[in-house]
């Protein structure tokens, strides 16, 4: 499931390191301290990931911007997520990143530590980009290891336990209780299993899903990273994997083989196919997942819940997408104006309609929630996001190499338990040693 991500991440690191080490045009930052003030005119390139539907709404915003700023042009560059970063890495290594580059928190510091992105705080201080409507916890997800703001997060995704409500009711267990923790979750899936149809596991095996552990750590108040090393204890990881091993042994999960083979596209996830009662899915995947379920299991309904809590509080962590401006941008005023427009223009927000995670501008979020024409599933997605943000989720700053080192190693380590019979203690120790060594070299 993570093979493609791993290869993309490894490719990203290799290319970026090769390109930057080779002395391309990336070097001293000619635009350091740029405030973004100046004439808003001319052309900028904008890059984003997505498919047809997102391309349409993105282009709609671009058209609005051009109408609001006559004389400007915006060249769009889009691709699927993985392809997007494959191209972006080459562009970054070559000093040719688009002036408005979409970024995600988990990849952000692969770039910030290579001096390819501008610190955007001077633009905020100068009033060129207004972020006053973005919650501080959300804004902090755009920071680098040095605390500087390199990404203005415009869309916030989050993990959600996506439950097939219909199957849950048929099993006689309903939904997990409000504020449920991992123990309650484990109890709930165990009670559900006997009442499920033959061949339908209660939960997709989640021991190899890094996002599950990220949630687990957040709920227990442990940091994912600290000083560019893993910030949590070995015991915590052992505890997490032991939980999943108990569930697997109890026969309430998918098999390790089935989980390993599961495609990562939303429409092909088991919960979207009606083949499992519950799974961790991005919260904004509810709409496409339900649409798929309508085709494969007509009449079945999905509902999304916050991640299980822990002793320290909520388990949700935000995964934000936003805009960065590269140091090589040759039209910073227009790029900054575009970012500001995207973040604050009401018509733009309405046109985009939270198509890449929930809109982070709280005014726009409320406008969308209050819109009677908002589709019910989208409303559910945004409502859950609003509830999560109200609990002030912890911000995670991912170190460079996170994607290639952490996620890949996490999957391999758990699979060594599930397939190879390694003890969770040994797997956790090996994982932490490997990842810390990798992070130390990035």
């Amino acid at each position: 499931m993570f093979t493609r991500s791993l290869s993309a991440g490894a490719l990203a690191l290799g290319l970026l390191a090769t390109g930057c080490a080779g002395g391309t045009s990336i070097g001293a930052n000619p635009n350091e301290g740029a405030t973004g003030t100046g004439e808003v005119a001319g052309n900028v390139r904008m890059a984003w990931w997505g498919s047809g539907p997102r391309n349409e709404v993105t282009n709609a915003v671009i058209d609005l911007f051009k109408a609001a700023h006559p004389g400007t042009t915006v060249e769009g560059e889009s691709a699927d997520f993985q392809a997007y970063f494959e191209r972006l890495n080459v562009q970054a290594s070559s000093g040719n990143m688009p002036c408005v580059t979409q970024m995600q928190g988990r990849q952000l510091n692969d770039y910030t530590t290579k001096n390819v992105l501008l610190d955007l705080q001077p633009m905020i201080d100068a009033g060129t980009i207004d972020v006053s409507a973005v919650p501080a916890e959300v804004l902090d997800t755009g920071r680098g290891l040095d605390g500087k703001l390199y990404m203005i997060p415009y869309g916030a995704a989050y993990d959600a336990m996506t439950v097939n409500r219909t199957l849950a009711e048929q099993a006689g267990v309903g939904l997990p209780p409000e504020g449920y923790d991992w123990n309650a979750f484990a109890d709930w899936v165990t009670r559900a299993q006997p009442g499920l149809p033959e061949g339908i596991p209660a939960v997709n095996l989640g021991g190899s899903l890094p996002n599950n552990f990220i949630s687990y750590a957040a709920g227990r108040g442990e940091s994912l990273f600290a000083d560019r090393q893993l910030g949590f204890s070995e015991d915590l990881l052992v505890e997490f994997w032991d939980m999943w091993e108990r569930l697997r042994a109890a026969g309430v999960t998918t098999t390790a083989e089935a989980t390993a083979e599961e495609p990562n596209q939303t429409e092909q996830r088991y919960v979207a196919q009606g083949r499992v009662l519950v799974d961790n899915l991005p919260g904004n995947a509810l709409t496409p997942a339900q649409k798929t379920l309508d085709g494969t299991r007509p009449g079945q309904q999905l509902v999304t819940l916050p991640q299980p809590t822990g002793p320290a509080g909520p388990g949700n962590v935000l995964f934000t997408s936003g805009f960065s401006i590269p140091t090589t941008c040759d039209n910073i005023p227009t790029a900054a104006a575009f970012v500001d427009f995207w973040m604050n223009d009401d018509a733009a927000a309405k046109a985009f309609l939270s198509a890449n995670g929930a809109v982070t501008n709280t005014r726009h979020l409320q406008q969308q929630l209050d819109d009677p024409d908002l589709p019910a599933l989208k409303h559910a997605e945004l409502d859950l996001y609003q509830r999560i943000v109200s609990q002030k989720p912890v911000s995670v700053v991912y170190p460079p190499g996170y994607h290639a080192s952490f996620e890949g190693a996490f999957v391999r380590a758990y699979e060594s338990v599930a397939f190879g019979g390694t003890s969770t203690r040994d797997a956790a120790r090996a994982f932490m040693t490997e990842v810390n060594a990798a992070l130390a070299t990035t």
Partner: protein
Amino acid sequence: MIFGRRRSRNPLVLALARHALLVAILVVILYPLLWMVGASFRPSNEAFGTLSVLPGNFTTENYVEGWSLGNLNFSRFFLNSLVITLLAVVGNVVACSMAAYAFARLAFPFKKTMFGLMLGTMLLPYHVTLVPQYVLFNELAWINTILPLVVPKFLATDAFFIFLMVQFIRTLPQELDDAARMDGCGHVGIFRRIVLPLSIPALGTTALFTFIATWNDFLGPLLYLVRPETWTVAQGLNGFLDATGESAYGPLFAMATLSLAPIVGFFLVAQRLLIEGIATSGLK
């Protein structure tokens, strides 16, 4: 007393058995393709609901929707791919054949060394040269043009095809060259009148493989053809996928089905040449 069972020697039975086995293998090989074609006629949200190749709820909507991708028409992607692919085929055939002739027939200093270096380029993963190439083409202001994908083909950069044709040309009798030279031909004449006509199988193989590789290439166009109006078919297909949002599998399968048509057509035209090329080039 007869021990053991007598093996049937009935030619008809043996033929039927062989054909049954071949059909079984064919079914296994073609199943994914047939499933995709079947899925292209199912509603998008039912694409993965069955392993059957038969569309339960038949619809052609995927083809209609897929052909119109946003503001663009998929015909644009087909045209782009066709132009790039045909130019690449011409470039590779012309340039690689000339390079191969030089290695196979000309005598020049350091030929063996240069041949080794040429072969050595096959050992370089594409990703090693990716960034330097991109820097070069960016400095030339070729991004968003087809030039990065086409011009190298005219410069004999595909070592595999050079090698393939070298091997083929080496099988041609040297005496033919000698006879042509006695009739007054120089290297240009020998190449054009003797070697090239006799190398049609190898040229066909080069053309076919270049067509397939270029038509299916995704990474090259991804890097250099950024504007949607310049997208190739491979990029257009990628435009239906979104790992972070909603994918449109029905239109994807429909357009993927159509995207196979040029490859199948080209293969049917060139398959005899392909078989001859493989047989005589030592690839078997």
